[in-house]
């Protein structure tokens, strides 16, 4: 992915939700993306799927998958790519399933719309297989979403996501609304199916603890920009960007699951970004250059990238 630029048109002018975001993903790799809410991480997930809704739009950039630039594909071709090559496990699984359709129908229509229209019996069989692979009983196929628990729903979503054996799975805060035990089960399920498929995973979220356990590499986003990408171990031991540093410092402890706590200052409004480094008003180390010039993401140490003038 290179130089992705996403704008949102608002009544008061365009807003840059993602700017010059670049990274690469290897087959079978698990990449995490963290950031505060509004930092552009969900936008990133949607952008990869080319699902940015008007008034937002992707202005520039390339998303390469197996030698194909997704952003250059026709709408129809892109539609075929979704689920078949890149699948999404949605945030807020509570509402991600159509409440008035049976689970199996929600799996079946994905199969059908990707040109796989096998017989009814084959569909049922495939559905059972998929449900089994995420650890759900076959009866679930005939149920409606409201008859399932949160964890079951999320597993159903995973079942849908893997139904066409995608190369990349984007999981957008897949566990945000679940309790710890269920969270763990779901993540285990996700890890298992990923392994079975040999797919890469982009895990979007703000739970550092979860990231630490699950991903290989971690990207940090701030104000629509990717400010650091490093192997997960490196990030926790030696963060490169001051923001990452503060982020990690704010965790109660590494072993415990935790979320962000007090970083001084406010997240800047996307439509009203400060000049220079977007983080400088909150950065304790800010120098004049930070206020004037926007830093670029560069490799600071092997496999460790950051966008900071101070490094």
């Amino acid at each position: 992915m290179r130089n992705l630029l996403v704008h949102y048109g608002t009544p008061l002018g365009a807003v840059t939700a993602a700017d010059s975001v670049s990274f690469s993903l290897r087959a079978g790799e698990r990449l995490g993306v963290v950031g505060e809410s509004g930092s552009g991480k969900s936008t990133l997930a949607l952008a990869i799927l080319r699902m940015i809704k008007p008034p937002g739009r992707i202005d520039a950039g390339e998303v390469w998958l197996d030698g194909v630039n997704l952003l250059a594909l026709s709408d129809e071709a892109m539609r075929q790519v979704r689920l078949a090559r890149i699948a999404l496990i949605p945030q807020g699984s509570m509402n991600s399933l159509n409440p008035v359709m049976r689970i199996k129908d929600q799996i079946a229509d994905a199969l059908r719309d990707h040109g796989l229209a096998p017989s009814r019996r084959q569909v049922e069989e495939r559905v059972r297989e998929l449900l089994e692979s995420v650890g759900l009983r076959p009866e679930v196929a005939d149920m409606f979403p409201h008859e399932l628990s949160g964890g079951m729903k999320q597993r159903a979503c995973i079942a849908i996501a893997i139904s066409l054996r995608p190369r990349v799975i984007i999981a957008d805060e897949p566990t945000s609304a679940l309790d710890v035990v269920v969270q763990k089960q779901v993540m285990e399920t996700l890890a298992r199916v990923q392994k079975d498929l040999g797919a890469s995973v982009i895990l979007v979220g703000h739970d550092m603890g979860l990231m630490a356990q699950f991903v290989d590499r971690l990207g940090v986003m701030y104000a629509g920009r990717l400010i650091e990408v490093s192997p997960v171990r490196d990030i926790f031991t030696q963060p490169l960007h001051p923001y990452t540093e503060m982020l990690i410092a704010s965790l109660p402890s590494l072993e415990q699951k935790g979320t962000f706590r007090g970083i001084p200052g406010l997240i800047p409004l996307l439509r009203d970004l400060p000049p220079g480094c977007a983080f400088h008003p909150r950065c304790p180390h800010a120098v004049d250059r930070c206020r004037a010039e926007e830093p670029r993401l560069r490799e600071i140490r092997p496999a460790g990238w950051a966008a900071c003038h101070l490094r």
Partner: protein
Amino acid sequence: MVQRSRHQRFGRRDFIRTGTLAAGALAVAPALTATAQPATAQPRTVARNRTLTLVWTGSREGRWIDYELWNPYAIGSNHQNGPGILYEPLAYYSAFADKEYLWLAESYKYSSDFRELTIKTRSGIKWSDGTPFSADDVAYTLNSLKELGPKVRWGVDVQQFMQEAKTTAPNTVVIKFKVPAPRFFYFMTYKYDIGVYIVPQHIFSGQDWTTFKHFDVAKDWPVTTGPWKVAFSSPQQKVVDRRDEWWAAKAGLAPMPKVERNVWLPSAGEQQLAQALITNQVDFGPSLQPATHPTVFRQNPKIVTHTGQKPPYGYMDWWPISLYVNNEKPPFNDKDVRWALSYFIHRQQIIDVGYVGASQVAPLPLPEYPGLRPYIASVKDLLAKNNTLEFDPKKGEELLTRKGWKKDGAGIWTDAQGGKLRLDIIGFGASGPAIGPVLTELLKRQGVDASFSLPPDFDDRFQKGQYTGAIYGHGGSVNDPYHTLRLYQSVSVAVPGAHLVNFARWKNEAYNKIVDDVFVTDMNNKARLTELFHKAMEIWIPELPDIPLVHNFHRIPMNTTYWTNWPTEQNAYVNGAFWHLTYAIVLWNLQPTQ
């Protein structure tokens, strides 16, 4: 729940399928029910130029609600809506020709004290089912009315006067009265909306008159003596066809009507009526607004009225319109206040604005008909002294000022106690909206705090005296002054249990006595009647119980495309209201043009 949800698979689709079916069924429902309503055979076809189609407002919101009711005595029934031409009377009276047509009766004679009436009926009359008509039918009709009293129409009127009716021979019926009743035969005679319908004893006896409908096309019901039969009846139309057997034609009393079919359509409003007249769909209809007539003439020159195509586009009704004030409520119990109001009203403006000039002022609450003209002429002297038509605000102001009224800061008349001269006028029908706003404005300009409204319960308020002012007419005399005079009678010695239609709630002992005298006077003793009328008016005019305004006109459009010889000014054989009981006379006279 999990288990159950599996059984619902079929549900939604079934639901949608049923819904679609139901929607389809809905589409044809009106057509089907309209068909199913009267399960009778289709009536035969009658050519348009032998059909007389009329529109009448006796319907409600565009539909006949009484289409099954052909028993004219049931209270829901109304002779205006069709039954009027089916049942024949003992006699007809045309006020315009001032002529009586003895009909089922051949002759009648009162005893000298007017306590007994002997009627001879014609022979050779047959009911439509072939049964011979006889005096028994007359006696049966009258005795039943007496017995049923308030349960049926006209029952009380008969009950008040009649002791009994008895047949003394097949064609003779003798009626004994409780009190002298010199107007009983006249009462039974068809004119305007009053008259007794003679019904067949062999059909009606044993039936409950209050609920009997007398309608069955298959049985050729209703059974009547007239030349008509009901061919079809529904909320949308009543079709009455000619019967080819009619005693009166055989007897040479009247020509067989040329009209072969009468269609009564419910009224849908003035615009629809005008439209239908222009396109010759309709031959005869209820009054149009005076301003609409020229529009209709312009588009269909074949339409005429009583006065051709000239104003007032109609004939004078028996219903002169007054401004009623409640004589029981101060300050309107004061005749000077009533007279002041009269002087305040510029009647010609009401005519000019309310009726585009197409009307006529009314000095008295009587129509100026041939039979009444002598009486009206006889009170000229009284009207000269107290001109009921005079517009002279000065005189009105004088009257009020003399009684201690003063105009307040806002120019409103106020009495000594500070009470305003407030007159809340109510109205209804066509006369209310036509007159009300203009009248109110005229009174306001003279300092009367007047208002106008059209309450839905006008009749109720008016009859119970829950009003201060009202616009209403007088359904009284057409040839004999008694009927108008009695409208102001507050009590009667001569007629025990007489009703009160004294809407103005005016009371005058001397007047009451005079009207009682009129009541027992022979209708033909015109000299005596004129004398009594003058005496009554000597009281009435200075008192002015209600304030006469204008005459009412029936501006009936008549279409000469298919039919001619309509009742008009030049040819005034009868008044042209087809809803009146004399419509039969019009039907005798109409001639086809094609």
